[in-house]
């Protein structure tokens, strides 16, 4: 059996195992039905929940559009985490970087009046720059003082969240007549076109060209890793910082640059949400995406294609989960459980092998993150 087929089989088995465990959770928490001894009802809930999950993610054009909409920020923020992992850094700060990118993109989006052909790229560039600048901070702090990026990115997330909360109430950003932290709308010329715009103006198709930006970013990430000296040096530093330094690489500047690149990806995630999906920004624009992005990167083994595939999977689960919550009384939080289980089972081929009594070698993965460094 070829390598690809084998790893595909393990992936599939991992998803099956995750669905199985989640099914168990759905059934045992159906307290009312179980209390009445009505197992049939508990199982029919399970059936309609999983049917809703499928219907909501791939069952129609609208479902597919929702999947893409959900996958877009996860992909871009996932790349932010992956890029840092490649350089041996653990970027927990995608949330903060997304917020920074959302703010700068938003500002360019409403403060300028330009033709769309200039306005859109300008606003996206501003998001990337905002994210990169904010992302570079933990890089600089680590290079200058040695402060660990896990601490600094967590703290910067908190700082960014509350700064944004304040910022959106200031005269510059706040929307007329609103007292809560919600911003003005961006100019129409700065909005990303809808992805399915060519199919007439169906307002239920939310997917936007931010997804194309995500695909381009994925390609750029691949290019960076495979075709550039910088990408090579980033990976060398991530692999063994001491060796990279002895080989003459400037590991400290690389740290800053890697974090800035990561921040730029996350900034684009924030920008594409503002310019493509909402048209404005609120304090919840980053939501849990920065956190989910870590799972996306881990699941995708920090590779460009892996990150893309796992972002699509997570996007599908999210879109399907919403349908599931509407169709049954199973809350969307189940999706978080399902994601956790998929990540776990895919990372543990040895376990899946033992569960399904599969013969043959389990493809084992290397380490994502080489300890805490020194």
């Amino acid at each position, binding site marked *: 059996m070829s390598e690809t087929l084998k790893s595909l089989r393990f992936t599939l088995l991992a998803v099956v195992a995750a669905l199985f465990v989640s099914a168990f959770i759905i059934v045992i*928490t159906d307290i009312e039905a179980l209390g009445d001894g009505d197992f049939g009802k508990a199982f029919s809930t399970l059936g309609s929940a999983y049917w809703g999950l499928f219907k909501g993610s791939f069952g129609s054009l609208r479902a597919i559009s929702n999947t893409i909409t959900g996958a877009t920020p996860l992909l871009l923020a996932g790349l932010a985490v992956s890029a840092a992992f490649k350089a041996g850094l653990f970027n927990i700060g995608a949330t903060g970087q997304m917020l920074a990118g959302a703010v700068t993109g938003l500002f360019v989006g409403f403060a300028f009046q330009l033709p769309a052909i200039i306005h859109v790229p300008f606003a996206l560039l501003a998001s990337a720059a905002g994210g990169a600048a904010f992302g570079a901070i933990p890089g600089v702090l680590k290079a200058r003082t040695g*402060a*660990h990026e*896990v601490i600094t990115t967590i703290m910067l997330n908190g700082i960014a969240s509350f700064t944004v909360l304040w910022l959106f109430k200031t005269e510059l950003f706040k929307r007329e007549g609103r007292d809560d932290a919600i911003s003005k709308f961006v100019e129409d010329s700065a909005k990303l076109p809808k992805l399915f715009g060519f199919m007439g103006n169906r307002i239920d198709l939310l997917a936007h060209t931010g997804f194309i930006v995500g695909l381009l970013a994925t390609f750029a990430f691949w290019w960076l890793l495979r075709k550039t000296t910088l990408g090579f040096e980033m990976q060398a530093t991530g692999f063994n910082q001491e060796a990279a330094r002895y080989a003459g690489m400037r590991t400290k500047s690389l740290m800053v640059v890697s974090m800035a690149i990561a921040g730029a990806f996350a900034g684009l995630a924030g920008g594409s949400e503002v310019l493509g999906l909402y048209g404005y920004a609120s304090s919840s624009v980053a939501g849990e995406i920065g956190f989910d992005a870590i799972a996306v990167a*881990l699941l995708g083994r920090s590779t460009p294609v892996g990150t893309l595939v796992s972002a699509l999977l997570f996007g599908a689960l999210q879109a399907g989960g919403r349908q599931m919550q509407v169709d049954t009384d199973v809350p969307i*939080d189940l*999706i978080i459980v399902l994601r956790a289980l998929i990540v776990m089972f895919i990372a543990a081929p040895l376990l899946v092998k033992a569960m399904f009594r599969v013969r043959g070698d389990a493809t084992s993965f290397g380490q994502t*993150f080489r300890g805490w460094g020194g």
Partner: protein
Amino acid sequence: MSTPATPDLVVSAEQRKRARSVGIAYLALAVVCFVVFTRRAGDAGFKISESSQFTLPAQGFGWVLGIVLIAVAAGQLLRGFGKLSNVVLALATAAFFMSFLAWAAAGDSFSFVGMLQDTVSRSVPITLGAIAGILSERSGVINISIEGMLLASACTSAIGASLTNLWLGTLVGIVTGVALAAVLAVMSIRYKVDQVIVGFAINFFALGVTSFISFRVLVPNRDTMNNLLPVMPIRIPLFADIPFFGQILFDQTIFVYFSFAAVALATWGLYRTKWGLRTRAIGEYPRAAGTLGVDVNKLRYRNLLLAGAVAGVGGAWWPIGIVGRFDQNITNGRGFIALAAVIFGRWHPVGAMCGALVFALAEAVRLKIGNFDTGIPSEFLIMAPYLVTLVVVAGFIGASRAPKAAGQPYEDQ
């Protein structure tokens, strides 16, 4: 110690650079004193017990401190304070903090002792989470899943305590922590899964399952399954009567005493016992420990389960120690703050507790200062704990060295 002490005169370029940064920081603090702290007139009352208080004139204190800080900065930049430099730094920081409080509370009064009491109480889950992190990482297993352990234990202990009693509830929380730790242990030790991935999977799993249970089970059955009376503070006789410190340290809930004991025991255990030596050995260089006959993986299992139990108590603090119920995502990232505290404290229990206290103090100050009209937007006050931790880590702690083997699975040969 047999190694000769390094003479004070020999300073590396790194140290000289740090000394200069600290000097510049003093100047910056002095500027803040002059520009900000002298703006609000009036006396600030600091209540140090039910009946007594001391007052600081906000403006005067700001002027005096600003001048003193300039003198200190000059001393630091021109001569340096040698061995005393850390003492000077601590004193200056404390005085600056007092001046800040005086400025915020000018013309009013607040319970200083209550604020510090609150600090100690709030540090409990962070400290216990950090101890859990230290126990795992000292034995060579990266533990990102502190947040998940705290959250899951908070949920189950709330249910357990609502259905039975507080003791059993706490026990259920401990069992939950141990169960998640067992997942981490089996996955990372037996199945050799990347430890960061398992850790994050556990976090997501705990967040998902507890939100799911909260929505599907706890909300419909609020009165029976998520409703309890949290524990009362226990006054320790005699000690609680010590003026000022008594109320802060010895008039607290059992969770606070447990966390003190956990820090003391972990410190003693890690540095004074055979178990501690072995634990540190398998976290630094497991091959050597294994060669000398230590069963590396067995000890890792044991320490991880112990870590889970400690985190379990930390999680139970929310429903049983303070709030009286479980809410969705009640831990709100405190497990990650605990992780930061581990690194902050350089994998030492006492250091980690200091980190937890810094964060908790900033939080307690925010809650008190929020009552005064200082002109600072409330968002910046909420931000304070994050900002303070960032400044402390970047400015004073710097690089920290992790246990060398953390993250690597061990295989017997």
